[in-house]
């Protein structure tokens, strides 16, 4: 039986009729049409589906859609600060070559934005620890770590 769920996604209120056995990931991708959040494993092992649920990074594949009533969700589509204004992390990922195939990128960006919200000046070790649940098969992580460091610096210097 479908349940009605009211939820705020990227600042917009949605009223959704959901089957209880649909993951938040599938709801976002199929019901809401936000396909930026990716499914790399569907079982919590890769982080490609990371979104912020009330500000906290979670694997949306391991959350049921019916559980998020009353919550605020931020996805990659909502990370940008304005039509022409990227989030400093998005800009840093572009400049530093942190996205190759890009399939892992939305998940990394959401995780990294949660990380910087919590710890604006992380060490390299803290960054590596923070993104340990996000798999990238293309980059070897070097450039992702560099991009997160650069974004943190940019934010600190007020550049972004």
């Amino acid at each position, binding site marked *: 039986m479908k349940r009605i769920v009211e939820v705020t996604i990227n600042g917009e209120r949605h009223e959704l009729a959901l089957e209880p056995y649909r993951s938040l990931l599938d709801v976002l991708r199929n019901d809401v049409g936000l396909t930026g959040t990716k499914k790399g494993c569907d079982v919590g092992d890769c982080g490609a589906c990371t979104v912020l649920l009330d500000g906290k990074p979670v694997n949306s594949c391991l959350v049921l859609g019916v559980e998020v009533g009353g919550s605020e969700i931020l996805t990659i589509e909502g990370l940008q600060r304005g039509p022409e204004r990227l989030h400093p992390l998005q800009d840093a990922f572009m*400049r530093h070559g942190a996205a190759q195939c890009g*399939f892992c990128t939305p998940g990394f960006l959401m995780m990294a934005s949660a990380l910087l919200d919590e710890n604006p000046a992380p060490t390299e070790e803290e960054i590596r620890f923070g993104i340990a649940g996000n798999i990238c098969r293309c980059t070897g992580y070097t450039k992702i770590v560099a991009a997160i460091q650069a974004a943190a610096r940019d934010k600190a210097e007020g550049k972004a």
Partner: protein
Amino acid sequence: MSRVGSSIVGTSVKRTDVIGKVTGTARYAGDVKLAGMLHGKMKRSTIAHANIRRIDASRALALPGVKAVLTHENVPRVLHYGAPHPRSISVTCDQYILDRKVRYWGEGVAAVAATSEEIAEEALDLIEVEYEPLPAVFTVEAAQAPGAPQIHETAYAGNVLFKPVVVTRGDVAQGFAEADLVIEGEYETGRPTPAYMEPNVCVCQWDNTGKLTVWVSTQAAFMVRGILAEVLGLPLTRVRVLVDHMGGGFGAKQDLFQHEFLCALLAKETRHPVRMEYTRGETFVGGRSRHPCKIWLKQGFKRDGTIVAREARTVFDSGAYGSHGPGVTIVGTTALTSLYRCENVRLEGRCVYTNAPIAGAFRGYGVVQTYYALDIQMDEAAERLGMDPVELKLKNAVREGDMAPSDHPLVGHGLEDCIRRGAAEVGWAALRQRPREQAGTLRRGWGMGCEMHGSSAYPGIKEQGNAIVKMNEDGTAVLLTGAAGLGTGAHTALAQIVAEELGLAFDAVSVVHGDTDIVPWDIGAFASHTTFMVGRAAQMAAAEVKRQLLQRAGEQLEVAAEDLEVRDGVIAVRGVAGRRITVRECMGPKLGIPAANLVGNGTYTPTKSYSFAAHFVEVQVDIATGQIDVLQVIPVHEVGKVVHPIAAAGQIEGGIQQGIGHTLTEDYVIDPATGRSLNAGFVDYKMPLSLDMPPIRTILLETAPDPGGPYGAKGIGEDPIIAIGPAIANAVHDAIGVRFRHFPITPEQVLAALKEKAGAAA
């Protein structure tokens, strides 16, 4: 060809394809959602080798929401190539969409389309399959033993895929007779998988003219089009394949994986669009791995380190289907003619079917396996000869004029340059002299490994790169390319080359790709050839457009086209100040005269260029737990000409991640008794993660440009995964004095080897 002061090629311009990736708007095949779309799922076998005695879909069809079920009884039975390179010797023709027989655990036996994924999944359980078990073989030895079950009727002999490849140069017996030292060893490599992040997926839709449109995650859209048309009996005008972005392939996504055919047929049968998406587990079970390989290698050395003879036998395990088995076997085996020069060589390579998961193309294509053996044996030889391994490898490194595996002479001294530069960078000589830790349980070691790899699949395939460049009336240009965007930044590199050649700003070139109805034919993105081959084709197409452009400008400026040059969007008369016109002015419409339609076509049929690398690695071994950590990697790559430094370094760092995984933690394992998959997921298939990856200090050299590539550029995609493995194994030897000749090297094996060594010493 190359021009001084080139400004765009060699610069890390902002990759045009990345904005969609960081904002979540880039469209991947799995993002396609069409009205009325159904969900397809595949039922997979629970036995490794069997005939299907009976298959009954009636209960599944009765489940509300199920729209169609396909089994071998109602799909076309057409023997086809799984990796459909145009009839090349690299691949085999041994597959059916669904067969009456299954050849590995997890092979697709039926497919369902339903109104939801959940219903499709439930329907799979309702399909009844009765198997008649056949004896199964899971090792190359068992598959070649007398009386082994024959897996394919199409095989060359027994379970041997194709006539074993034999390569001879010089006189091996004579060579060994002259040797002061002969080393012989057996080497074995595991079953790593590419584990790209985007699971295989496709969406199929038929329109009412009978035309099939396919959105698919592939490296080779035209190959998918060709084989779908062939198997489904359609002209090429009725199949359109679309690939916008794709989430990695690393070689494996050159194949078709059953679901592409099934998805098309389900869409046809239901008259609805259908999406079929693999689960992560399925990308292991039904995906492609590297070929597990056994290598017997024997070399003879003179006291001064000169190699006088080399003999090898390689056996590649293809698993249940041939895929790229022949290509991998040939490339991997013939690679042993080179890297370290030797005039007397005898090599034999064979490829064998087993009932294991399918091996396919994977970055490094056979060479990962054989150079692992070769380079480790060189390290061992150095030890036995009392030489520094760097010195021994340098002495024997292939160089200008030596015959490459592809049988044409090498250009330049790239390998020597890499070795020298890396040794200087890490202070190799001093490292060799450093004091060793005695206390505690941690032991450190340094090692180095070398590799070379060809761009393009020549001579196995006479490839062809194509490009079309069109001028717009505002002076900007469009590149049409069939090359896939795997994420390597290839489209950016191609646009850089076109901009460079045309004298336009990088932003003035846009790229159209990913639609087989529009872009020129392309063989697919593999064999490290995109920048090298398609880049050269793009350069040729741009040069052709430039010729037309200067012709037009010459008419406007009333000078001969030969006297004109174009730079930064301005066409000027060479040596005459002030006689100039912008490309925009030249192209634009004049009163009563429309803009010109300038189109350049470039087609390039390359031979092959070789890129080189030496990797220097420091490891730490915990002798109490056997755990090996890689502490740092200094990869030195010679690539002819760097088109985009950041993208190039990114390729190297990513390849090293995969190579470290291969060597230490990654292995796709099957139950040796049943062939059942044991670790089809990211928990137990262990790729190095952010905390496991060491710092990587990449060094790029441009000392041996190849005249066949654009501005001398050569490939880079595959190289980085090859040298890292032997570098690690050699470093482990340096750390603990144990020589491993296989991968992955597990902590348990480290402990066992240490005990054995202690026992031998006692």
